[in-house]
């Protein structure tokens, strides 16, 4: 089965062709990603209207490039998938509409994919992970621990009560005058900093529910930084190191709590899977490896380019759904807000 996947929910314009083999294995045939981050850098974050304008200028060219790279034709596709949310509505409208247009022309099924579900299922594309597994979804917009029981069957075990972890990294970078996106910048600075110089809190540590809270940490970091401003290069590196260490400690504790909650409710998971842009952070990955070992399971972390937003994960989620007969109509709605738990309900909704 050959599926085209389109991703436009934030600031990457992406298109990919993925094959689902009969035995359920996935194969990426082409994966094109155009990042807009340079266009948003001056604003210290993604500007929705700028993102939408960029998507509509380049999406068809991105798809065409993916088709050429895959050496295939639209007629050879078995379906067209697009991220229909959650995310920035202006970009979603562009991606979903173009997917519908292609599906209409070539008379192939359309799948309006939940972007979070696509992140959740990526480990099945890369590592053929079987259900059920425990997902730690960590990005600029989301911080969730999810029991992935089947395609369309997700139980959220924990979430952030305020900021997402990626958002906290971005705000830290902005505060310290580092570039955008902030995550990689903070990680780079942290590598040459002294994490113990500042005593930062570990919010939620030891709580029974595997939830997160980042706003107190963010505020504590700001207060420490303000005390010693103006900041030297070493100050910035030390602040980044202290911040990242605190996040890592919180992640380790919260995810371990999440794995235990998973086991109580659903038995042993086949794996701890990490997904989302923050999953490329090496310190967080190392901590998750340790936590997986402590919980008698193993960590599955897709390669970095499949953790950040991409079209391959959308195509793969589309393939998983088409295989199960879960397709959408040409009237499918773009959705700015779309919790993962509502993916089955959406599929059952009338056209």
């Amino acid at each position, binding site marked *: 089965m050959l599926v085209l996947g389109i991703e436009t929910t934030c600031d990457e314009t992406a298109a990919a062709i993925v094959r689902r083999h009969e035995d359920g294995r996935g194969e990426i045939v082409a994966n094109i990603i155009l990042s807009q981050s340079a266009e948003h850098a001056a604003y210290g974050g993604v500007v929705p209207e700028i993102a939408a304008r960029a998507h509509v200028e380049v999406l068809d060219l991105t798809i065409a490039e993916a088709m050429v790279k895959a050496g295939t034709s639209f007629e050879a596709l078995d379906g067209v998938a697009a991220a229909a949310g959650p995310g920035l509505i202006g970009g979603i409208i562009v991606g979903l509409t173009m997917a519908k*247009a292609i599906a209409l022309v070539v008379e192939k099924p359309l799948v309006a994919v939940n972007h979070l579900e696509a992140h959740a299922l990526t480990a099945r594309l890369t590592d053929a992970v079987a259900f059920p597994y425990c997902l730690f979804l960590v990005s600029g917009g989301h911080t969730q621990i999810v029991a992935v029981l089947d395609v369309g069957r997700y139980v959220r075990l924990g979430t952030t009560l305020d900021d997402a972890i990626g958002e906290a990294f971005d705000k830290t970078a902005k505060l310290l005058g580092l570039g955008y996106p902030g995550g990689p910048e903070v990680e780079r600075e942290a590598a040459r900093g002294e994490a113990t110089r500042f005593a930062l809190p570990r919010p939620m540590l030891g709580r029974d529910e595997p939830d997160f809270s980042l706003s107190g940490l963010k505020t504590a970091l700001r207060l420490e930084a303000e005390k010693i401003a103006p900041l030297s290069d070493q100050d910035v590196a030390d602040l980044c190191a202290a911040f990242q260490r605190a996040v890592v400690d919180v992640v380790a504790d919260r995810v371990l709590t999440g794995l235990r909650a998973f086991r109580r409710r659903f038995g042993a998971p086949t794996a701890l899977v990490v997904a989302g842009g923050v999953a490329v952070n090496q310190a967080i990955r190392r901590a998750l490896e340790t936590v997986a070992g402590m919980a008698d399971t193993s960590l599955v972390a897709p390669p970095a380019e499949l953790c950040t937003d991409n079209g391959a994960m959308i195509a793969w989620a589309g393939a998983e759904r088409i295989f199960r007969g879960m397709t959408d109509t040409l009237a499918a709605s773009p959705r700015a807000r779309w919790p993962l738990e509502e993916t089955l309900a959406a599929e059952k909704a009338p056209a």
Partner: protein
Amino acid sequence: MRILAIDTALEACAAGIIEMPDRVLAQESVAMARGHAEALMPLLARVMDQAGTGFADLDRIAVTVGPGSFTGLRVGIAAARGIALAAGKPAVGVSTLAAFAGPYLVAGETRPVVAAVDARHDQVYFEVFGPGGRILVTPRLVAVRDAVRAASAAAVIVGSGAGILAAAWPDGKPLPAIATQGAPLIASIARLGAAADVAHALPKPLYLRRPDARPQDAARLPRR
């Protein structure tokens, strides 16, 4: 030439298949302020069905590129470019202002034709056409009072912003004909699309207004 015309830039969701010069095979227009993203593709499927035509039978796709609702015009453009890509047919962009003015120019109007689209905040998107479609004032975003002044010699003011100009018209000055329309006619879009040069009339948005965004560095702490 068989042409598929699409318009979601303003207050309608509309599409039609026209065999040039003027045989309408099928068309449908639904008045709507929002919801184009859901409505357009099922509407397109119905229109294609009704016309009994396939995408392979089309010679080109014409789409309104604005000025209009930023989100709305991107729905039409994304659809047109998607169809063009998958069907291997050219897509051309048509200005909403030109599409509003088109019928008057075709009818041989000799005095200026003014097209205006509501841009809110006491502004309109505005263009003035002379005989034969010659452009007297290029498309731009202007204050309503400036548009009124520039429209004083017009024979007709057409478009979703025509009523706004009429309401601001000075007392004692003769008012041109006012043709308030929520969206341009599909036939007019098709005619302009058929005449357009594929190499130049690209299906790219004509926003006429910059995105509302300012650089943010207020949160940043001073560095040594």
